């Protein structure tokens, strides 16, 4: 059987095509984002029994977590907006929306929208770091739902 040719490769897409918004609206994106990524985990119960070599899986839910790094701004507005400046147990979770576009320019249109519900910073790494370096904030976060 002959080999089938793969479809054309869609190159040239990068992080410049993403916008990140805090809050339920997509009007003013964050401008200081150094990195943003997420991990989705399926949480599963495993059951095994004697006399049976099969494992039985029961999926219970999906965990969403990830990391976010922000460059220090002239003010700490964006660090505050994502809820990462000072952590307290009483922090109100946010909504975070990540939108992927088909182009970097403002003429680009939306391809995918990822909405993170109950976005909550769970760990902050901050400080001036080493001399001469640009200051940035590194967060780990969790969300209850990615849709």
């Amino acid at each position, binding site marked *: 059987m002959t080999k089938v040719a793969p479809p054309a490769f869609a190159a040239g897409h990068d992080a*410049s095509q993403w916008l990140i918004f805090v809050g339920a609206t997509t009007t003013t994106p964050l401008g*200081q984002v150094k990195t*943003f990524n997420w991990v989705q985990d399926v949480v599963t119960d495993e059951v095994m029994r004697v006399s049976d070599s099969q494992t039985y899986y029961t999926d219970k839910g999906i965990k969403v977590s990830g990391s976010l790094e922000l460059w220090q701004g002239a003010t700490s507005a964006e660090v505050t907006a994502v809820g990462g400046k000072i952590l307290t147990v009483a922090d109100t979770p946010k909504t975070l929306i990540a939108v992927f576009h088909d182009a970097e320019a403002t003429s680009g249109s939306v391809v995918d929208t990822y909405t993170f519900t109950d976005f909550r910073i769970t760990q902050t790494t901050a400080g001036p770091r080493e001399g001469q370096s640009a200051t940035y904030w590194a967060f780990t976060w969790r969300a209850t739902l990615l849709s």
Partner: protein
Amino acid sequence: MTTKAIGDWLDATIESDLSVTCKLGWPAFDRPDIAAGAYLRLRQSDPVYGERISASVDRFAKAFDVLVVTANEVALWAMNDLLEAMIRARTAASIGGTGYRFTFAAIERAENPYESDALRYAVQTTVFVR
């Protein structure tokens, strides 16, 4: 015009810190009428890509060359002290509402390719604007 605004700021700063007249542009080395003073010229503007997500080119790192011509060796050493004081004092500024940081290259004896008399006592450095 951002480049002109930064150049004007550097020009005014050099005139103030070194107490010399600063000209925009480089002296013509083959002419004998190079006067004591400072000269400022654009060296490069380096686009900085991928600093953040959501955009590609976020800023331009600029560099300007500074040449300072003096009348004699002792005046040159005095000028070196003033340049050192300027490097210490001028590490950041807000120009046109945007914050910039300044770093300097080594203060070096200026090149004198045509063995021009007027350039015997001259130093040069480069200021990086980011």
